[in-house]
């Protein structure tokens, strides 16, 4: 690397303390743009949003805007749509998150068995994850068409009854199928985690007579747990924010109300703000879901000590 040629083992004491000062100064110089942006561009909007959630702001009533206390928050609990859509969003998350994690681990393990062509399969599995949300929605909408859509045609081929995928009974399943198809985004992390496992570990376990299943459950899965933990935490956060996918799947434009199973919590919040111009209430809905996210992240963190492997 060409460094350390002078062969000195350590820095002299005096320069060490001045080094700390230099590092501190450099740290704050480098982080200044972030800090400025964070204050102006993230913290201030967040604080403003929380403030708005305690008012009757509608976007245009600057003159009649007033504080309404916790009215907006009470309304979150009395508005049937809010809790119903939150429950719906939870159900989708509870099904999709574990399945996504299982899919990513299975595929990564499967790929680790291969000798050649790993690159091709890796690309194939990852391909859906690089599709823009809008394009994914458009694509699946075509496949789910009631008449002539390929999924119904395949069902007919196996002599089943074609289904109205975009209707009340099946739109939820359609959404989940679409979400699971895109689950490969976490795959690269799992592949990397397996790649990081020293090969000696596998060799040693083989000498000890471990079979493949034992290698998977005793070596690969524990050592992939930090990645799976990251997938769980981000999965919980993003699934509560679910908005783009149901909207593009329903495909009638952003301001429309999609069929109930696609009407997620964030769609409800969006409707309140941009269609009904209830900014205060919309922000209360948003703050409420952020609190849930923070709580779930803390719970995840606590539970992680039970299953996430650390050195």
């Amino acid at each position, binding site marked *: *690397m060409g*460094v350390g040629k002078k062969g000195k083992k*350590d*820095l002299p004491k005096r320069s060490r303390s001045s080094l*700390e000062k*230099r590092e501190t100064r*450099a740290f704050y110089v*480098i*982080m200044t743009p*972030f800090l400025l*942006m*964070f204050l102006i*561009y*993230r913290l201030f*909007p*967040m604080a*403003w949003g929380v403030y708005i959630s305690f008012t009757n702001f509608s976007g245009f009533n600057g003159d009649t805007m007033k504080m309404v206390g916790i009215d907006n928050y009470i309304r979150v609990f009395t508005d049937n749509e809010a809790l119903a859509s939150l429950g719906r969003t939870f159900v989708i998350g509870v099904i999709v998150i574990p399945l996504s994690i299982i899919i990513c681990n299975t*595929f990564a393990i*499967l790929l*680790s*068995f*291969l*000798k050649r062509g790993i690159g091709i*399969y890796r*690309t*194939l*599995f990852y*391909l*859906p994850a*690089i599709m*823009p949300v*809008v*394009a994914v929605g*458009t*694509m699946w909408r*075509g*496949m789910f068409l009631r008449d*002539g859509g390929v999924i119904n*045609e395949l069902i007919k081929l196996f002599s089943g009854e074609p289904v109205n995928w975009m209707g009340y009974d099946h739109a939820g399943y359609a959404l989940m199928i679409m979400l699971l198809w895109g689950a490969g985004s976490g795959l690269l992390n799992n*592949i*990397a985690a397996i*790649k990081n496992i020293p090969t000696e570990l*596998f060799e040693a376990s083989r000498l000890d007579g471990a079979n*493949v299943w034992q*290698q998977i459950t005793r070596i690969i899965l524990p050592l992939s*747990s*930090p990645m799976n933990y990251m997938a769980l935490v981000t999965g919980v956060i993003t699934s*509560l*924010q679910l*908005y783009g996918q149901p909207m593009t799947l329903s495909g009638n434009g*952003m301001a429309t109300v999609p069929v109930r199973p696609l009407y997620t919590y964030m769609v409800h919040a969006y409707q309140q703000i941009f269609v009904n111009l209830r900014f205060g209430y919309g*922000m209360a809905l*948003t*703050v409420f*879901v952020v609190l849930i*996210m*923070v709580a779930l992240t803390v719970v995840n963190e606590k539970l*992680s000590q039970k299953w*996430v492997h*650390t050195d």
Partner: protein
Amino acid sequence: METKSKGLRIISYIAATLIGVIFLFPFYYTFINSIRGLNSLPATLKPIAYEWENFKLALTLIPYFKYLKNSLIIIAITVPLGLVSNVMYGYALAKLKARGQSIIFFAVLTTMMVPTFAIQIPQYILFSKIGLTDTFVLWVFEGIAGSAAITFLSRQYFYSMPRAIMEAAYIDGCSPYTAFTKILLPLSKPLCAIVVFQIFNFNWGDYMTAYMYLSREKYPLVMSMFSPAEYVMPGTNVVLTPVVNAATLLFIIPVLILFFVCQKYLVEGISGAAVKG
């Protein structure tokens, strides 16, 4: 892990191929439906016509180059700015010792927790108050602020490099800045590749931000390519599905190219980062 068992490997190949086909199918389906006639029923498993004209329509029905220009402006702003900011922040958070570092790292993490949605609405209100909506200034801010997830990844990447590298750099007369530019940065190609790919991929396909902040004139491609009929006959209900399908395929080509260019680095980039929870 390479398995010694031949049977297992063969089963794995079969399974991987089957899954690959399932994952690829929507792309194939979009393709065969991009070359069917404008008024025909959807093709199901094999092409029913070869109307290559649809690909041309996808580019000519909308003012393609105008919107491409807007997309490229956003990319030209966010990719270089985001690359510099995220990688630098990652370096500072991982390798420079300073008081208050953990608090600032926590600030990075909060931006990951609070949904973009929750920040964007108040941001929009603020931006409209100071008259910055319908400009690309927002993306300059986005670029400078960095993305929490990517800053986090960069930090993990530099974290995995031994501290001794820094000591050696200082002995060679480097400052904290030149240690970064001369020593660590040349070792960070995988990280840079993954950062460029992720920023490009996100901004190329991100429509929420554009939808919120920009007027039709300034829309990027992602806002216009999927509604070609709107540009022929405003307010129409016609969708022109084959043209939309062709547009979808054309739209993802740049991302695919970048993916293949970066693909070798993509996995290395992550395995370089310390995989700690």
